[in-house]
């Protein structure tokens, strides 16, 4: 039976962003990754319209995490206080294509470590692994403005993805990321209008739109994922509709969000299954749900969750 055509009249597409610079382009990375490029919604149109294969960025913390549940800390127990070895383990044993160096330790309410520490850790990780890096601040504006420019400088020319900049704190990091040749993460609190606004602000400072990746904030499965899900779908539709200020690839923070919730870490939960399985499963399914809405880079933590999600991605992006 003849079936009607579903012709989508999309005029726009998601930008392609490449992370990492090899020797030829002035860096020391041994590999690069390219994300974005979708010309339709997830599974919409033909397979050729799909985005580049989404990538998983495995988290490495600059200082030993204090509050990780046992299930999560277990696979890293010998490297948790050595970011270089930790990154190496992620790449060599767990196949990480990107490392996200998360500077939790600089937060004034945590270890309150200084810029010299952050610079040293960045150097260590750059030396330890050849994959592209994401460099992610602690979330405290003042401290990030002090530390992240120094981190940016030491990684100059490596074409990292650095962030995050927000509506009310974007100038310092945007300027330095531009000067050091990095890509930039713009962050919004689950609000599509603010997301667009931050992109406009960064662009007004001369930052090229095609080097921005958006972070819309992430909710874990069961804890607001539906808001993140719908915002990602709307962002994709806006990009396809030709809105240049929304045509960026998207990054999400699944690792941190999913390991915060009860379902992932409560050991004493009769009928819910062993917490050793539940934790990785919660992280994996949070990532998989967001993949259905359209995300390009997924920050993750547990190797088993990474393996499940990678397997899923490989089945779709063959």
């Amino acid at each position, binding site marked *: 039976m003849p079936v009607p055509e579903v012709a989508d009249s999309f005029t726009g597409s998601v930008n392609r962003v490449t992370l990492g610079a090899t020797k030829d382009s002035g860096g020391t990375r041994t590999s690069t990754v390219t994300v974005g490029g979708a010309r339709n919604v997830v599974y919409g149109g033909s397979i050729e319209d799909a985005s580049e294969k989404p990538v998983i960025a495995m988290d490495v913390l600059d200082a030993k995490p204090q509050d990780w549940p046992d299930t999560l800390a277990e696979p890293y127990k010998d490297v948790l206080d050595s970011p270089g070895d930790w990154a190496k383990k992620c790449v060599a044993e767990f196949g990480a294509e990107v490392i996200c160096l998360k500077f939790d330790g600089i937060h004034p309410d945590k270890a309150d470590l200084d810029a010299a520490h952050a610079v040293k850790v960045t150097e260590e990780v750059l030396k330890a692994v050849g994959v592209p890096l994401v460099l992610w601040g602690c979330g405290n504006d003042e401290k990030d403005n002090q530390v992240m420019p120094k981190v940016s400088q030491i990684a100059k020319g490596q074409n990292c993805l650095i962030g995050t900049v927000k509506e009310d704190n974007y100038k310092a990091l945007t300027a330095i990321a531009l000067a050091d040749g990095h890509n930039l993460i713009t962050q919004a609190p689950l609000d599509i209008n603010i997301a667009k606004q931050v992109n406009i602000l960064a662009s007004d400072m001369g930052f090229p739109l095609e080097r921005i990746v958006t972070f819309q904030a992430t909710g874990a499965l069961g804890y607001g994922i539906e808001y993140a899900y*719908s915002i990602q779908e709307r962002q994709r539709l806006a990009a396809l509709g030709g809105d240049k200020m929304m045509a960026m690839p998207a990054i999400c923070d699944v690792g941190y969000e999913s390991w915060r919730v009860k379902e992932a870490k409560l050991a004493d939960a009769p009928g819910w299954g062993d917490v050793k399985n539940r934790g990785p499963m919660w992280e994996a*399914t949070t990532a998989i749900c967001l993949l259905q809405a359209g995300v390009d880079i997924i920050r993750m933590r547990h190797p088993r969750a990474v393996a499940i999600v990678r397997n899923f991605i490989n089945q779709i992006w063959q």
Partner: protein
Amino acid sequence: MPLTGLEIFKLLPKTNCKKCGMPTCLAFAMQLAQKRAKLEDCPDVSEEAKKLLAAAAEPPMRKVVFGTGDNQLPVGQETVCFRHEEKFHNPTVIGVTVSDKLTGGDLKKRIEAINSLQFERVGTQLGVKAIAVMNDSGSVDNFAAAAATVKQSSDLALLLISESSQAIAAAAGKTKESVPLLASAKPDTADEMAKIAKENNCPLVAKAESIEQLSELTEKIKAEGADDIVLCLDVPNLRDRLYNLSQMRALALKKVFRPLGYPTISFVEDGDADQQAAQACGLICKYSSIVVVDTVEPYAFLPMLTTIMNVFSDPQKPVQVEPKVYPIGEPDANSPLMFTTNFSLTYYTVESDVERSRVPSYILVVDTEGTSVLTAYSGDKLNEKTVADAMAKQNVENLVKHRKLIIPGYVAVMSGKLEEATNWEVMVGPRECSMLPKYLHEVWKN
């Protein structure tokens, strides 16, 4: 797709006889288009026009119901492709397989394991809703016997899965009071299967290898008089399944292509529990009305069922928690008391951070009509009066001996008025609740 007034007008007698109460046929057509009049009011309308108008009024995706009692399950009747446009209507049903090779104690054990896949999370009951009896044995008798046993030992809705029309007929005969979903009619068995479905008054799965074949198949089944159809695309890999589900959804809803205007079913039987849960979550998000899995590991079901809960939630209505006092850990009369709003996202974030602190505490949830702290404050739903009322209503005076209330850092500005309204000492907590553990340890304890 609904017809416009002009399209309806073309189907009317155009006599302007006024018997319907309207001055002209055109006026009547306009009223019909807006559903303010009924077609029966026109005594002269032709049978053909009646049929056309009735067909146009049907939803683009049919609702199909199977099961009985608490597990009478409606699937389908979706209207949009994206949940931000409108709430998705009928939540995905999760079913689990039972092989008819199992007998006696093994069969009972498997059914029992599936029956117990029920969960309570955030005050809501979630669970597996259906059992799929698989004709793995190839035997008609074994299949019918297994179906009868499942019917007896479980309240869950039934799916009968066999390629053989004899097996389906035998099993349906023993279970038809439970309105099982029969699966599957293929192009070469469409006639017999449709007949069985019609005789037993059960919905039927149509299974084919391409969208074109499936469209032909549903028309054939419909012509046999079976209207309640569920679509199953028989493609082996996950990528093709997901792309096809999206295409079928678009064809049904955007093109109003009737041969595909039905709910869908997917089978996830390969891989371990991890892989099955992963695939199922993808299929739930992207338009599978029923997902049948093989695993019975509880840890795999909790995320699948939560995905359904989240994806099918109403995007217009914030999810709320009941306004009351929630004890975290085992608090006593000296434990801290703090308040937050009844927007579920706000509450559960606070709850998780308080849990993380391991400081036993009370969280008082103030009814702010499901808005977050800042939104509620700007909308005047969170002020000294609503907080004081909530404190009085929940009798917090009897809960703790101290008279100290921790308030969210974002509404520090209401401290003065709140102290006046309650005579309690107000302690301003952190702005971000991720800082609560530190606050409870360092500020509260001193």
